[in-house]
C-alpha cells in the first residue's frame, strides 16, 4: 500500500508538516510514513595546519575522523529517533492509526527516491532547519526534489490549517493538463472549492482548453469558480490568490529545462519562493 511520505527534520516547520500529513492521510485514507534523513555535513578534519605527516599519518587521521563522525552520527540518530517518536505520538493523537517512521542516511532527496515505490504523496516543509525564520529562502533541496520526484509533492509553509478552497493555475500546456487530470483522479482535493484560473498567454486555443478544463472538473463534482484573466502570469495569479482568499495552490512544475530557467527565470520557482500557503506540485 502506498503511503504519505512525510519528511521531518525538527525545524520550526515540523508541526505544520505533521498537521498537513494528518490531513492528507485522512483525506486519502493512506498510512503516514514519517521520514527523517540524517544528512551528513561536511566533516572537518583535525584542523591541523602543520602540513607535517609522520609515521602512520593515514591510519591516525582515519581513526580520528571516524571517531568524530561516529560521535556526531550517534547524537543525530538519537535526536532523530526522539523527533520521530514525537511526531508519531502527535499524529496518533490526531486520530491516524496507521503510522510508520523511518530514518535513513543521506540526502533527503535520495531517501525519498529510495521510497518511490511505496509513495502516494510527499509532504515536506518548504524550507528546512537551516532556514528558520527567513521567509523567502526556499529549502536547498526543494527544487531538486520537485524536478526528480515521481509523485505529487505537498509543500508546507510554517503553519498549516485545513484548506477549504484551492486554486489551480492552468496554462493549457501538457504539464498543466496532467496536473488537472491528477486533481480529478486523486482524492485529496475532493470536496474543496476549486478556483480554475488561466492567464492569457501565447498558447493556441487556450480559452477552449480552459472551458473544457472547467467542464472536466465540474463533471467530477467540483464546485468551480473559473476565471480567465490577462496580465503578467505571476503577478495576476498572486493578486487572484489574495483577493479570493485561496488556501492552497495546485500547479504543474517546471515545464522548461534548467537551462531555459537560467536565462528566462521560472514561474514555478517564483511561486515556490513567494507563496505563504500550502502548494501541491504535480509533475
Amino acid at each position, binding site marked *: 500500500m502506498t503511503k504519505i511520505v512525510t519528511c521531518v527534520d525538527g525545524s520550526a516547520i515540523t508541526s505544520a508538516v505533521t498537521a498537513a500529513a494528518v490531513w492528507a492521510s485522512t483525506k486519502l485514507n493512506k498510512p503516514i510514513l514519517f521520514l527523517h534523513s540524517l544528512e551528513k555535513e561536511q566533516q572537518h578534519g583535525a584542523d591541523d*595546519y602543520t*602540513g*607535517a*605527516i609522520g*609515521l602512520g*599519518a*593515514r591510519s591516525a587521521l582515519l581513526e580520528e*575522523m571516524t571517531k568524530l563522525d561516529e560521535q556526531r552520527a550517534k547524537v543525530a540518530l538519537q535526536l532523530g529517533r526522539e523527533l520521530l517518536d514525537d511526531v508519531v505520538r502527535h499524529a496518533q493523537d490526531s486520530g491516524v492509526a496507521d503510522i510508520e517512521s523511518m530514518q535513513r542516511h543521506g540526502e533527503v532527496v535520495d531517501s525519498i527516491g529510495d521510497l518511490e515505490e511505496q509513495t502516494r504523496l510527499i509532504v515536506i516543509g518548504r524550507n528546512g532547519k537551516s532556514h528558520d525564520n527567513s521567509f523567502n529562502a526556499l529549502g*536547498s533541496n526543494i527544487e531538486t526534489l520537485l524536478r526528480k520526484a515521481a509523485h505529487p509533492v505537498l509543500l508546507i509553509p510554517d503553519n498549516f490549517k485545513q484548506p477549504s478552497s484551492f486554486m489551480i493555475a492552468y496554462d493549457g500546456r501538457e504539464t498543466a493538463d496532467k496536473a488537472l487530470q491528477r486533481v480529478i483522479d486523486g482524492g485529496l482535493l475532493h470536496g474543496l472549492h476549486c478556483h480554475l484560473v488561466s492567464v492569457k498567454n501565447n498558447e493556441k486555443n487556450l480559452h477552449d482548453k480552459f472551458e473544457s478544463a472547467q467542464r472536466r472538473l465540474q463533471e467530477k463534482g467540483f464546485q468551480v469558480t473559473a476565471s480567465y484573466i490577462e496580465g503578467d502570469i505571476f503577478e495576476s495569479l498572486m493578486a487572484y490568490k489574495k483577493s479570493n482568499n485561496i488556501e492552497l495552490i495546485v500547479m504543474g512544475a517546471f515545464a522548461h529545462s534548467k537551462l531555459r530557467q537560467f536565462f528566462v527565470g521560472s514561474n514555478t520557482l517564483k511561486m515556490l519562493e513567494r507563496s505563504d500557503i500550502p502548494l501541491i506540485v504535480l509533475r
Partner: protein
Amino acid sequence: MLENMKREWFSNIRGDVLAGIVVALALIPEAIAFSIIAGVDPKVGLYASFCIAVIIAFVGGRPGMISAATGAMALLMVTLVKEHGLEYLLAATLLTGVLQIIFGFLKLGSLMRFVSRSVVTGFVNALAILIFMAQLPELTNVTWHVYAMTAAGLGIIYLLPYVPTIGKIVPSPLVCIVSLTIVSIVLGLDIRTVGDMGELPDTLPIFLWPEVPLNLTTLEIILPYSLGLAVVGLLESLMTATIVDDLTDTSSDKNKECKGQGMANIGAGLFGGMAGCAMIGQSIINVKSGGRGRLSTFIAGLFLIIMVVFLDDWVGQIPMAALVAVMIMVSIGTFSWSSITDLGKHPKSSNIVMISTVIVVVATHNLAIGVFVGVLLATLFFSNKIGRYMAVRSYFNEQEKVRTYEVVGQVFFASAEQFVNEFDFKEAVETVVIDLTHAHFWDITAVSSLDKVVIKFRREGATVSLVGMNDATATVVDKFGVHNDPKEVEKLFGGH
C-alpha cells in the same frame, strides 16, 4: 548539475582555502625536489604542479584530492631526460595524457580490482624508499654543514607540532625551510641551494608545443615511457582516490578521474610541465587541514604559482639541505609502517607479494614493472590456493565390480595434473564411473585432462562412464558478468 557544482566547489570555502594554502606551501619543495629527481629545471616541476592542480580541480573525479608533479612519475622519466632531453619529456607528457584519457573511456579504472592490497602496500613502500634514495646524492661528498642543516631541519619538522598553539597553526615544513634559508644567508654558508639546481620560474607558464619532430621515431622513443607514466599515474591516482574516499566517507568517480588525469597531463605538457598524478601525502595533508572540495585543489595550484613567481629570488636561496629534510619527511610519511609490524600477522604469500613488489621497484626504479610483478605473483598464489580445493574420492562396489570416482572442487590449469594423479590406473576393473556432479571444469586444460583419464582407463580395458558432465563443464564457457546475477550463480554452483 549546477547544484552539484556548487556543492563540490563552494560548500566548504574557509576550510578549502586554508587547506589549499597549507598544501601549496608543502607542494613547492616537493615539486622542486621531484624536478631534480627527473633531471630537469625546478620550473618544469613547478609549472607542472600548477597546471595539473588547477586543471584537475575542474575535471577530476575526486574532489579534495591533490594532484601535481610526483616522485613516482619523476622516477620513470630519468633516462628519457638524460638521453633525449626536455622536449621529448614534454612530448611524452602529452602522449601520457592522451593514453590516460583513452584508458578512462575504456573504463580501465575497474582493472584496479586486480591490484591486491599487498601490491598497493608494496607500491607505496617502494615509492617511499625511492624518494629517500633520491635524497642521498645531496648527502654524499658534502661538508658537515649540510648534515647539521638537514638534522636541524628534521628536528624542526617533527618537534614543532608539539609546541602548544603555534605548532598547530604554522606548517612545520615551512618553518624548517624559512629558518634554514635565513641561517644559510646570515652565516654566508657555501652550500648548494635550489638556485644551483637549475632555472626557477619568473613568469607564469606560457603555451608552447614541444619541439620534437612529429614522426614514428619520436613515437618509438616516447611511447614506452608514456605507457609507463600513464599506468603508474592512474595507479597512484586511483589508490589516492580510494584513500580520500575512505577518509572523508564519500565516493568518487574513478573513470572520470582517469580522464581528468589525462587532461591535466596534456595541460602540463603544453605549458612546459612534466607529467604528474595524484599525491598520497599531499592529499592526506589536505584532508587533515580541512580541505574537502575542488576549491582546495584549485587554491593549492594557484597559490603555488603566485608564491613561486613573486618570490623566485628567495626560493633560489633555499638550501638543498632544507629540501632534503622535507623530502625525508615525505618519504617517512609515505611509507606504510603498519606493513612492517603486520608482517607476522599476514599470510606468507601476501608478504612475498609485497616484498617482491618493493624489491623489483627498487631494482628497476620503475613502479609499473613492480606492480606488474606483484599482480602476477598475487594471481599465481591465488590460483595455487584455489587449485588445492579439489579432491577425488573413490569407492568400490564389490557386487557389480564397479569403481566410482567422485570429483569435488575446482579443476583448472593449476590443479589439472593433480586431478589426473588421483586416479588409480593400475587397478584392474571392468567398469569405472567418474562422478563430476560436484566438480567445476574451468578451462580447456581441465577438459583435456579429463579426456586423458578416460583414454587411459579405456586402454586398460575398462568401460568408463561420466556422470554430471554437463554441470561440471558449464563453467568452461566464459560467462562474464555471471557473478552479478544470483540466478546464474545458483545455476553454476547449484547443489554445492
